């Protein structure tokens, strides 16, 4: 028992090593938060382009670009994308790594958000578009006031899940020497030569975050269902 307490002390308390985890968690949350926002913006724009093309046949060029974006981003691992953005695209520029992380994970998440949003738009009865058109509302107004509010409600749970996935995906940020939560645990491991405690601690923190977020999503879903009932 004493041995275990000693290990616990060495791992977290001695030399304020727990700060690696605290600072890492901050970085992880920061990257996740801004990457989610960037992903949402990109996702909604790309989905709007794709859905508009599917519904009206317009925006051919933009749709083509959007398709390439979706194919490339969804067809390659996020870690490779992160490395390319840091070591290739920003190779000759000194740039804040956190910013690179936000950019990489945001661009990556945007592709998945785009497909979620598009499926949400496509799930709305075409009759809703027709009802809008028959009242003289053009495509844009119909989209903004009639389709998007309904689509958004349908996809909220899926979007929330995407946030959870993104939170976990940021754990590869250490590959560009970003000190996120995972990297923080790994640093402790490398100075104490003790793998079990820091890595389990890291896993536990992720787990608590994900379980917490999931229960929020669950609450959200139940709330949305309630307003569906007549």
């Amino acid at each position, binding site marked *: 028992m004493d041995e275990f307490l000693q290990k616990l002390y060495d791992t977290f308390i001695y030399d304020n090593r727990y700060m690696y985890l605290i600072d890492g968690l901050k970085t992880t949350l920061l990257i996740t938060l801004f990457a989610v926002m960037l992903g949402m913006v990109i996702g909604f724009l790309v989905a709007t382009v794709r859905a508009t093309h599917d519904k009206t046949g317009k925006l051919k060029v933009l749709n083509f670009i959007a398709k390439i974006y979706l194919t490339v981003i969804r067809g390659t691992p996020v870690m490779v994308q992160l490395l390319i953005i840091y070591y290739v695209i920003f190779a000759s520029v000194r740039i804040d790594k956190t910013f690179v992380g936000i950019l990489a994970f945001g661009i990556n998440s945007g592709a998945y958000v785009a497909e979620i949003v598009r499926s949400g738009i496509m799930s709305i*009865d075409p009759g809703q578009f027709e009802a809008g058109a028959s009242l003289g509302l*053009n495509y844009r107004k119909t989209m903004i006031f009639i389709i998007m509010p309904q689509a958004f409600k349908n996809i909220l749970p899926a979007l929330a899940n995407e946030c959870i996935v993104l939170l976990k995906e940021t754990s590869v940020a250490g590959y560009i020497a970003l000190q996120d939560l995972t990297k923080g645990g790994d640093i402790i491991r490398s100075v104490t030569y003790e793998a079990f405690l820091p890595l389990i601690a890291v896993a536990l923190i992720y787990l608590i975050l994900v379980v917490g977020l999931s229960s929020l999503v669950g609450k959200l879903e139940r709330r949305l269902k309630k307003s569906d009932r007549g």
Partner: protein
Amino acid sequence: MIEVKGLKKNFGKLEILKGIDTTIEKGEKVVVIGPSGSGKSTFLRCLNMLEKPTEGSIIFEGVDLTKAPEKQLYKIREKMGMVFQHFHLFPHLTIRKNLTLAPVKLGITTNDEANAKAEELLKKVGLSDKADSYPNMLSGGQKQRIAIARGLMMNPDVMLFDEPTSALDPEMVGEVLNLMKKLATEGMTMVVVTHEMGFAREVASRVMFIDDGVIAEENAPESFFGAPKNPRLKAFLSKVL
């Protein structure tokens, strides 16, 4: 008011409308009947360009809709109310908002004016107490009456009805037809695709039988139902009457 010339519509290789010519005058109540798949709904949907005709022209108040630019088309649709078989109310909005959304967002009226008009129309369709309900809380008949009120909000010159009672439980058909009769007596120009022969007989100024993509026969209701000439119409009427 609406002039249809040589209207044809194909879906891929399938020819739905094979050349329709007719004129609908102001104040007329044209009831369109025909077997399912005959093209009657497609015909109606071509009138406000929800379906783009393959050939021919639709001239509404002097404008050829098939050649009108998109912007003008939306302007014109404000003047052509449409009621759908499945209502297509906006489920995320209250009944009041369902009515006021289009006139307000199109900048035709202020919010207050729209609310006042909505109040008035809800009274007319007998659903004043439902202003703050959501569409899902209403019965089918109530939904369709709201859909009609929503169309009337735009002060349309013509109302198009696409099988307005086909999705309703039998006991709710009457309330919707009564409202449509009320509109008719007020002088609204109406084009109604329906299977309600009683309504056609009572309200129509002209009944149109569309069969296999053409107008096979059209006439005032007395002669249309009393002395049908077209053999397909005779067969159709003997099945539905």
